[in-house]
């Protein structure tokens, strides 16, 4: 039997045809949050392993990035709120079932910790800047503060490892908690976003590192993370294939739909497979400009966030 379905009537200019209420700031934040989580995770981990002098970029030099990324990300998040003056209401309660509440509280703890971490390496990494600014001479209390932090740095590192992981997972869980958007509503999104965040973090370390040994180690780490990420993406697609009608329709956006070129072209091929091959070639011993795979991973990470946020909002229950 042929069937025609025709629905009309809900013609409301400010609501229909699509309820796209999350825009670029959300995608940008998801990327920056993941990047900061990845960098902080490696920094804290290598500090705990007492490799901070051996892998100085990962622990010390790059520590300037997370505070900037988190600050920009937080600004983007607040910019996307429509009732901005009431943002403080986030911190009047903790709602265990709401991923956004978890995220707000974790950010409230991680952001200051990332600033403190950077501050603790400020004089060591930027002696020239300090020689110009003479902050420690002008403000005496900074000396006591620095001593206190350096003494307790190991505890900050212990706290940062789980917090960075929660921050990384949260960027994915934020989306997967919405059962009304079938593209997002799968449990693999949390681990996938975490892996992607760690991978972009490792890529950022490769970009900044001047030490071949360090670059090689993070090349290997990044390669492993890319392989895990590819496996998780395969799982995600398989999950859609095995899913209900709404998930099948959601998947069509990524496989053979409007987002196919962006997803498979820019995220999977250019953002994962090509850098993985290049990193592999470099590990074997050939010379590859490391900046290329690292940049590809980072750009792929950004595009991945944009694709998931934009495409997810187009999917919905049909009734």
């Amino acid at each position: 039997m042929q069937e025609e379905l025709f629905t009309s009537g809900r013609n409301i200019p400010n609501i229909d045809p699509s309820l796209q209420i999350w825009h670029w700031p959300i995608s940008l934040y998801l990327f920056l949050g993941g990047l900061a989580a990845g960098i902080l995770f490696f920094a804290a981990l290598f500090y705990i392993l007492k490799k901070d002098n051996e892998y100085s970029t990962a622990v010390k030099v790059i520590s300037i990035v997370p505070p900037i990324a988190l600050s920009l990300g937080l600004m983007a998040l607040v910019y996307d709120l429509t009732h901005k003056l009431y943002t403080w209401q986030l911190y009047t309660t903790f709602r265990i079932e709401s991923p956004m509440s978890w995220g707000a509280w974790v950010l409230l703890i991680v952001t200051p910790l990332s600033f403190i971490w950077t501050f603790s390496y400020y004089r060591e990494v930027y002696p020239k800047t300090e020689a110009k600014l003479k902050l420690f001479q002008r403000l005496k209390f900074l000396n006591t503060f620095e001593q206190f932090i350096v003494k307790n740095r190991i505890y900050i590192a212990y706290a940062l490892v789980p917090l960075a992981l929660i921050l990384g997972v949260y960027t994915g869980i934020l989306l997967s908690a919405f059962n009304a958007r079938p593209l997002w509503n799968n449990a693999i999104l949390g681990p996938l976003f975490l892996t992607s965040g760690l991978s972009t973090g490792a890529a950022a370390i490769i970009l900044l590192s001047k030490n071949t040994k360090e670059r090689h180690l993070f090349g290997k780490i990044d390669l492993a993370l890319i392989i895990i990420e590819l496996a998780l993406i395969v799982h995600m697609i398989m999950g859609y294939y095995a899913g209900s009608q709404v998930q099948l329709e959601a998947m069509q956006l990524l496989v053979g739909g409007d987002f196919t070129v962006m997803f498979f072209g820019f995220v999977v091929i250019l953002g994962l497979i090509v850098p993985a091959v290049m990193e592999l070639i470099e590990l074997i011993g050939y010379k590859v400009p490391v900046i290329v795979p690292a940049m590809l991973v980072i750009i792929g990470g950004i595009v991945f966030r944009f694709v998931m946020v934009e495409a997810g909002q187009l999917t919905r229950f049909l009734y």
Partner: protein
Amino acid sequence: MRYAMVIDTLKCVGCSDCVVACQTENNVPLGYCRDWITETVDGTYPNIVMELKSERCNHCDNAPCVRCCPTGASHIVDGGIVLVTADECIGCGACIESCPYDARYQHPDGYVDKCTFCHHRLEKGQLPACVSVCPTKCMYFGDLDNPNSEVSQLLKNRKYKTLAPEAGTNPHVFYLI
């Protein structure tokens, strides 16, 4: 006490009176609405079936919007009505993303707004504005916990459906079919 709305799709003519009544009663800003009419035509000419119905927030038992709200602005009050406290809402949009019925919108003032089952009218013993104006009397409103109420009796004696029950929300707007 569990408020529910029952809408007879066989009696609805799609006049949109409920939409206008709601916009007037609740001062809904121009270009937005808390309820709307859908018109679904099924089949191939000449064997076609048309269904008209008035849709709105389903005041779900397992409300995803309340679950996702980071501040507790979205909450459930006595009678199972899902409400938004404007002063607690930060406008993050998590509830809008989480609603399978797209029943919420961002008010131009910033907070998120939606159908309240005309909570302010219920407190005065009046029916929701949409129910009270329906010219074909296709909408019914009452207490589902009371087995003798009009809504309970209708659901006992007539065939009915809810929207997207597979979303697991346990909605409380029922459609007689």
